[in-house]
């Protein structure tokens, strides 16, 4: 895997200031106890409170009784299948965002999972940084101002209606795809988005890009929005992805 060797590169740990994200609470429904223990610990270190249920029935109970920001549900569970847990939660009117984890060997697992009411899907094996980035984006989805016409990060502005990008009042011309890339990054400002998430949301292909293809697009975008400005906004998070954030 190749990384952009640039000056802005941060490691994942540096992006998680304590207290900033500490309020998020998630439920992990996973029957592999070792994996669940690792996930719970890793999420806690990232400032996220994670409860754990080891089968479908107790997961459904906990998901119904308590309030969570995100549910991480394994597809194959004892006592009640993951998809059926989601369906039952939705039937009860609980619309907590759900991320499905799956090790099933089928091409269209993702489609099946999303159809059953899941909001995101991650096939095993996955890197924890990928899971973390997705959970954070899902957890903030409720508060995301989707209806905002203008996204702002520092002095960077993106007008979704006029399809215009300005920085410090000066217009920056972008290609349509570059615009969508920046739009997605700014929609999730302050959060890590992975290369896979970018390929999914900007290009609508759902697989691991494997190579540096996304990095090249991001670096082109970066050169356009940061060329004449001293303050870097678009940061590379080593081993995870990208984040747009105003540190000033």
């Amino acid at each position, binding site marked *: *895997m*190749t*990384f952009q060797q640039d000056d802005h590169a941060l*490691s994942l740990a540096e992006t998680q200031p304590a207290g900033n994200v500490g309020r998020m609470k998630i439920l992990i429904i996973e029957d592999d106890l070792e994996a669940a223990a690792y996930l719970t610990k890793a999420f806690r270190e990232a400032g996220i409170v994670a409860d754990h249920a080891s089968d479908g029935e107790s997961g459904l109970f906990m998901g119904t009784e308590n309030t969570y920001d995100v549910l991480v549900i394994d597809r194959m569970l004892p006592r009640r299948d993951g998809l059926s847990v989601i369906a039952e939660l939705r039937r009860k009117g609980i619309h907590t965002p759900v991320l499905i984890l799956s090790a099933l*060997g*089928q*091409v*269209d697992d993702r*489609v099946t999972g999303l159809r059953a009411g899941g909001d995101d899907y991650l*096939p095993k*094996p*996955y*890197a924890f940084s990928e899971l973390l980035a997705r959970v954070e984006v899902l957890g903030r989805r409720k508060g995301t101002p989707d209806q905002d016409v203008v996204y702002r990060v520092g002095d960077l502005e993106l007008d979704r209606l006029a399809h215009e990008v300005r920085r410090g009042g000066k217009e920056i011309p972008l290609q349509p*795809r570059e615009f969508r890339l920046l739009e997605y990054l700014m929609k999730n400002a302050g959060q890590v988005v992975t290369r896979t998430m970018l390929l999914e949301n900007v*290009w609508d*292909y*759902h*697989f*691991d*890009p*494997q*190579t*540096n*293809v996304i990095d*090249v*697009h991001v670096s*082109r975008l970066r050169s356009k929005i940061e060329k004449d400005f001293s303050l870097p906004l678009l940061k590379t998070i*080593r*081993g995870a992805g990208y984040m747009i954030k105003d540190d000033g």
Partner: protein
Amino acid sequence: MNRFWVLFKSTAVRLSALYILLFAICAATLVFYVTAMSERLLTSQIREAVQQEVDQVQRAYDNGGMNLLLRTMERRARQPGANLYIIAGPSGDILAGNVASVQPGVLDEQGWTSLPFRYQRYSEGGQGKPHMAVANINVLDNGLRILIGRDLGEPEAFRALVRQALMVALAIMGLGAVIIWFGIGRNALKRIDRMSAASKKIMAGDLSQRLPVGGSGDEFDRLSVSLNTMLGRIEKLNEGLRQVSDNIAHDLKTPLTRLRNKAADAIDTPDADTRRVALEGIISESDQLIRTFNALLMISRVEAGSVAAEMSTIDLSAIVADSAELYEPVADEAGLAMTTDIEPGIEVQGNRELIGQAIFNLIDNAVKYSAGAEAGGEVSLRLTRRPDAICLQVADHGPGIPADKREDVLKRFVRLDESRSKPGTGLGLSLVEAVMELHSGKLELSDTDPDAATNRGLAVTLVFPLK
């Protein structure tokens, strides 16, 4: 003997035995029916003949009294093959006639005898074997009883003849049955034996064995052909599996060892910054491993079947345009020009994600292997509709692949670049091939510039069948 028992147990033989049994029962019933009918006909003819004589004798008596009656009977009795004639007294004692004795009680009856009866002829002196006859007994007005009868020798002989014929017929049928048993049964048994022998070898692990096919196209052949097709598929899957596990073991051992060594180094590093760098190296190495596993899983998911992948009508032109747009900056950065020639509006039945990933893999390879190549410096994408198929060609001007290595590069983990200096999992083309197989298409490798001395380039063509 054992073989014969097996033969008897075989289905074909059991069926033909049953068939022959039913046939024999029908034949026997028919023969008995015909015999009975013929006998009845014969008996009624005999009765008619006897009745005529009775009438004539009665007429002689009526016209000429006892005198004429005796003369008539005497004359008739002397004729060759004469019937039986008896004149008996009212008490049943024989007064005259050509019969020595009759079964007691017969002469007491009147009209037709109810059953055939026994009698003895003069010539045999009462010692010969009794003969069977039927007769009519007419009582005259003077009390004398006139018996006129006929020997049953003829129907008896007929019945015996029919029975004999039946026996001969049954014997021939039985013989025929045995020949058919051996013909059909032995043949079937031999073929089944051959099939069992082949299956035993297959069970023992020799998956290259095939069941024998006779060539007549009968049920056995059709069964063998289906089973052979199945075996071919199993063998291919099995071979793939074996090869993959070999390659996984081989190809993953190196990065795992590297990972372990890096971790060991990191543990002993006192300097925090150096340790951080080492740990980041470990993460990136692990990510590469995860990618490899994901790619492997993806291939097996695709190979596992068409059942799982959702097929719909997709705009191939748009996917190719997307791919070109996605990779254009990458090519640009590598100092390559990307040219496209995309016929618009080409649609195929397929899975957008998989076809997209296949095309990405091809462009990625093309960029990777033409970077640094002196000639050309161009990656071209061409989507065209031919009369028989839809073709997508991704061509580069890199070193290319010699014709004799082309089959190898489709295998999992095979990379011609022995030094492994280029990044990659060695799984890209395997995935593309699996995707094309899922879409009933194929993957063709050729030279971009067949006439060039070096750097002939690789042109990969995806051929999609027309609906």
